[in-house]
């Protein structure tokens, strides 16, 4: 029993990390009023870029960097469309995702050598801490990048909490952009920056998925977890701190796909594949009415008279 629980927790954390990283950034972005349905696209772009560069250079860390940069580029496109050109955020986000999903398949056919081994990220166990029963292996026997990402998530959460000037600025821009502008906040710059942050986070979580978990690129390998990250923000009711819990739950829902058959429980695979999405549906259905989303979410900002 303890063994099964440990295995489940290890898998849940491993599968929850990509969602956690992307959702933390997305929560900040939504608090600033920009919804990015393109998280899925940023992730898949990060996956392909990291694998391509890792294979080329032989260094997984160069791949991680490339993944982050590729994500930032997708974020720059999303920011250009939704912040600067004030285009419909949901439509452009979905279209960017579609472009990235199709584009990565296209580019993988042309550029990726399917036979080349992908240099992956090995695990680094923290001495002593990883010996703690149940939670030890889940939290302290991760690839190095995992710890880096945890630190990054913690940093973003603290730096954008409501006790910092940055956090207040983000909330002000997302609640009432016009008044924030009167108060002298650079609305467009803040919004563009948070979208770039989502891009970088999405790219990094894609790189983590591809280099630390799957260790190769497969078509459509993100399989919708980018959308789960967006839903996680809603389920966490736009509180950056709660995102971690929701990400763990979504990770667990995915982990059941692998642990239940291993435990000898026979459930049709399709049910297990659908489980995270059903859970996500229940989460938005049950929680959304008790929450208040940022007032200016998806509302573009333009200074009156500025055209």
């Amino acid at each position, binding site marked *: 029993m303890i063994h099964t629980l440990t295995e489940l927790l290890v898998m849940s954390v491993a599968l929850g990390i990509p969602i956690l990283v992307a959702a933390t950034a997305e929560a900040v972005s939504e608090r600033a009023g920009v919804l990015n349905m393109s998280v899925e696209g940023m992730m898949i772009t990060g996956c392909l870029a990291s694998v391509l560069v890792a294979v080329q250079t032989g260094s997984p860390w160069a791949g991680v960097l490339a993944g982050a940069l590729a994500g930032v580029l997708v974020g720059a496109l999303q920011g250009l469309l939704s912040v600067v050109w004030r285009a419909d955020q949901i439509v452009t986000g979905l*279209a960017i995702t579609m472009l990235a999903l199709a584009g990565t398949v296209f580019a993988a056919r042309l550029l990726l050598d399917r036979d080349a081994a992908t240099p992956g990220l090995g695990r680094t166990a923290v001495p002593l801490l990883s010996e703690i029963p149940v939670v030890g292996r889940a939290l302290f026997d991760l690839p190095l990048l995992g710890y880096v990402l945890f630190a990054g998530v913690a940093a973003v959460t603290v730096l954008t909490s409501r006790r910092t000037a940055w956090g207040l600025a983000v909330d002000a821009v997302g609640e009432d952009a016009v008044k924030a502008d009167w108060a002298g906040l650079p609305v467009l710059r803040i919004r563009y920056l948070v979208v770039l942050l989502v891009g970088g986070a999405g790219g990094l979580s894609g790189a983590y998925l591809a280099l630390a978990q799957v260790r190769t690129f497969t078509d459509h390998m993100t399989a919708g977890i980018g959308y789960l990250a967006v839903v996680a923000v809603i389920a966490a009711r736009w509180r950056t701190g709660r995102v971690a819990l929701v990400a763990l739950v979504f990770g667990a829902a995915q982990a059941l796909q692998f642990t239940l058959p291993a435990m000898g429980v026979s459930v049709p695979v399709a049910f297990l594949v659908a489980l995270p999405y059903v859970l996500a*549906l229940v989460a938005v259905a049950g929680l*959304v009415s008790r929450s208040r989303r940022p007032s200016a979410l998806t509302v573009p900002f333009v200074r009156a008279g500025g055209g």
Partner: protein
Amino acid sequence: MIPRLPASLRSLPGPPDPRHPLSLGLLCGAGALLFTVLMALTAGSSPGTTLNALWSSTAGNTFALGAAVNTAAAILLIACGFVIAYRAGLVNVGGEGQFALGAIGATAVGVHLPEGTPVLIALPLTLAAAALLGAVWAAIAAGLLVRRGVNEIITTLLLNFVGLALLMLVVHYEQLLRQPVTSAETLPRSEPLVEAARMPLLGVSGSPLTVAVVVALLGAAGTAFLLKRTATGLRLSAVGHNPHASRRLGVRVGGLRFGGLTAAGAFAGVAGGTVVGSAPYVLSDDIAAGYGFTGLVAGLLARGSLLAAVAITSALGLLVAGGIGMQMAAGVPATISQMAEAVLVLLVAGTAVLVRARPRAPRRAAPVPPPPGPVPETAVQGSGPAEKEALR
């Protein structure tokens, strides 16, 4: 019934303005085509080879043209449903899941009908089952929207994944819809539909053109009639324009939203039914791939004009067929057609600000006769599901 010319066409005379919605649309289309040719060039196919492959796999070949038009018919059905929901201010992203459920419904009926059933009974039954399951799938999202105020974009999107998992489930289990497993090579797909439940060919020689085209055109005509000539259509756009004002005027906002989104699901379901009913007449787990997004693109680009929807879906159907043709003839990955679609949406959505940025004419001038000149129509067109046509 011929729909009136869209406002954008009526105001054509005069100096050509590159910001005009129509010329902007053409420019975006040209941009997407240029993108396709450039992408194919990076894949090692010269522009000549690319355009040649595009032509010969679509318009230059009777069989391919028929297949492309069949595809376009399914896209048109999804687009019609999208437009109905969009009129009520709702964005249905769930076309793919509703399509999958429709395909399941059509197969469940189509493989179990007795062999001798007349076509006139079997076909409507099959399509009705498709519409019903598609509608039920959309109704989940619609119910959550009306009852609990959950954003329909998120729910329909998530339901896609659940719907595709269901599709996977039914084709993998013999107790459900899988064909009897006789050997290890038995594919996870359904048995073929009985003869009577298949979409009859239209009888154009050498062409796989089926009745699906007629179904889709009837659907488009029906949608146009509903939206432009009935009180329900007027109420739907009222809800889309201003739900609060509509509620005060006694319009049943919740009911109309529920109905609009459910209708969108029914249309997407029928689209799934027509695709299962076309060769090779079996349900497989990749049958829904790409249809949902393409239907959304078509509905979005048509901006409420069903005449435009017919034109755009034809182009998109050709584009999908052209992508497959380019893969075979020029060695370019077929996903290039999805990339072109996505670029088209980005261009259209990104340039919408150019239309919006023009001086806003009085926006509340709806009840008075339209002033001459293009200003109010274009100003409105840029602002979402706005269509003053019906309110006049």
